[in-house]
């Protein structure tokens, strides 16, 4: 429940930024990329005009943070969808056909599991490619890595359990074809677990993106990780100190966003897994 509330708040934040911007907030001062407030010295602590203060370049932190919400949503959704599709496909094919197919797919998942996805994202984000990695590309690549690795392994164990259950035999005896068995029985029972893993994939993708952009690899756009990176790179020109008010809000927002999805996953597991529902 807490998770749902937080996710709803972040959804609200995405919608509210274009509304505030230009109507309540003066464009020149509050622009998340080029804004500058000439009235005060920067970086400044939280103030009536700037609720989270400003960073060393004089930009409003609240506005930057709200602007970073949208790419995070896009990334989270694309990663979740791709993870679910890849993981369900690999798990269902492996569990249904069994034998050599299953062995081969299992080895592949094992190999994918050895790739540290976030680090890998930094590597492919370096150099000429970085300008072309948008939130969608990032989400898709992360989704493939996570779905073919951990996702497939987790879902496969559930798929095997489903394949061994009596109703599969019943359906087979009743004359159901392969497609009928897979789509009506296997996939139908896999969906809850796929959705559960989607939530966990969002957690991983969001943290991985924060990680990659913190390395400065996606600095062309404004995301939460980028704000932290910029806050650490451009320090207070006078003292050299890190502007804490500029890096704390996006870091906390990132944790909260991921935590909200984790909590939703925990809530969903109670529904999806009858054994856990018992307590």
């Amino acid at each position, binding site marked *: 429940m807490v998770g749902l509330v937080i996710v709803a708040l972040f959804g609200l934040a995405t919608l509210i930024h274009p509304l505030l911007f230009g109507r309540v907030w003066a464009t020149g001062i509050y622009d998340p990329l080029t804004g500058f407030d000439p009235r005060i010295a920067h970086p400044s602590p939280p103030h009536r005009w700037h609720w989270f203060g400003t960073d060393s370049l004089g930009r409003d932190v609240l506005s930057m943070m709200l602007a970073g919400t949208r790419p995070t949503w896009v990334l989270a959704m694309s990663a979740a969808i791709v993870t679910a599709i890849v993981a369900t496909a690999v798990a269902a094919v492996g569990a249904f056909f069994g034998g050599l197919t*299953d*062995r081969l797919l*299992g*080895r*592949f*998942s*094992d*190999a*994918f*599991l*050895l*790739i*540290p*996805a*976030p*680090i*890998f994202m*930094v*590597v*492919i984000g*370096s*150099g*000429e*490619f970085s300008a072309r990695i948008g939130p969608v590309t990032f989400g898709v*690549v992360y989704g493939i890595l996570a779905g073919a690795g*951990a996702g497939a*392994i*987790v879902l*496969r164990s559930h798929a095997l359990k489903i394949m061994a259950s009596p109703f599969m035999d019943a359906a087979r005896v009743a004359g159901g074809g392969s497609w009928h068995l897979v789509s009506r029985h296997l996939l139908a029972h896999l969906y809850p677990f796929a959705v559960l893993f989607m939530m966990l994939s969002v*957690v*991983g993708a969001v*943290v*991985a993106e*924060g*990680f990659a952009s*913190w*390395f400065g690899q996606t600095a062309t756009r404004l995301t*939460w*990780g980028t704000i*932290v990176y910029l806050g*650490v790179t451009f320090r207070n020109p006078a003292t050299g100190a*890190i502007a804490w008010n500029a*890096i*704390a809000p996006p*870091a906390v927002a*990132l*944790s909260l966003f*991921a*935590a909200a999805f*984790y*909590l939703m996953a925990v809530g969903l597991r109670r529904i999806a897994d009858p*054994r*856990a529902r*018992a*307590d």
Partner: protein
Amino acid sequence: MRIARFVARRVGTGLLSLLLFLFILFVLIEVLIPGDVASLLRLGLTNDEFQDVRDGLGLTRPLPVRFLIWLGNFLSGDYATTSFGRRASRHIFDALPPTVIVFVIGLAIAYVLGGYLGRFTSWRPGRLSQGITMGAVLAYTAFPAFLAYLLNFFFLDLFHTRRLNWVGNHGLLWAHADVTESVVMLRMTLTFLAVVGFVGLGAVHVRKRHRLRPSRLLGALAVAALSVGVWWAMGIGRFAADILFRAAVPILGMALLSMGEFVLITQTAMAGTTGEDYVLTAHAKGVKPRLVRDDHAGRNAVLVVLSRLAVSLPYLLTGLVVIETAMSWPGLGSFMFDAVQTQDLPVVMSSLAIIGIMTLAVRIALDIAHMILDPRIEVMVEEPML
């Protein structure tokens, strides 16, 4: 004999995965990243000259051939040359001990503390437990870089400005040393791992022979005391103290980052055990509540934690890379980050491959531990995948 067969089998499938992993890594990096090493030298070349350079470097050969050549070099210990003309293998092997020190000690602290908190929260639901759980969720999803900066800022500030420096002048110590830092770290790591193995085997022996369960705290103390003793005997005591002192903050960061996960998994694994029959039986026999919690109900959670750890290793390693980079700890993470910054793709690939091999080694070790803890696992070996 049974264990030997299991190990042989696990290593065999592991090698197959490793080969697949290296191939996937190679293909992904070749396909996803535009340009190749030759494009670094491109400036001022005409197209024909550029193609000549690529031919000369063997970059125009088909992908599988290039993979085999790369694999051959990698297996013979040639991990590419950095842009500064030094062999990458030297750097990588210098960077391994610091990484291992932080990773192993940090993970051990997280395992013990996280396991305790997980058992506590699932055993006694209430306001305090809810708070701890929420904290664990936040730690699990925390932004590693931010955490690293926060810790670094807080502790380095504390140590340096408030004169809590116990070891004395760090620069002076190393200036008159007859050993380098990397040599000391290598010796420290090797002796430490040897001591851990020795104490671990000793514990198993005591358990089998005398039917005693040695306490975990005693084991940890034995490891610490033995390591320190060996280091002093080897004459690297003061240097080791200095290194451990500086490693304290990265270790703390690593422990904090991985602890949340341990708490949550232990909690999930133990959920619902409070009402189980065997727990009631233990209570009725008059076993102390703490022992019922740790030895009866919590015993099964250990296996779940171990198997989950195998899956989340890449995630933990990533956290380690961030911590190393943010705290300038000279480990594999910092080295790889530098290579990424200077576009040293061959070096980056070797580092990624080394990380993969380390992950695989730890996973095999975990599987063997799993097997020793739960003899039923042999049934599962018949399945193609663990």
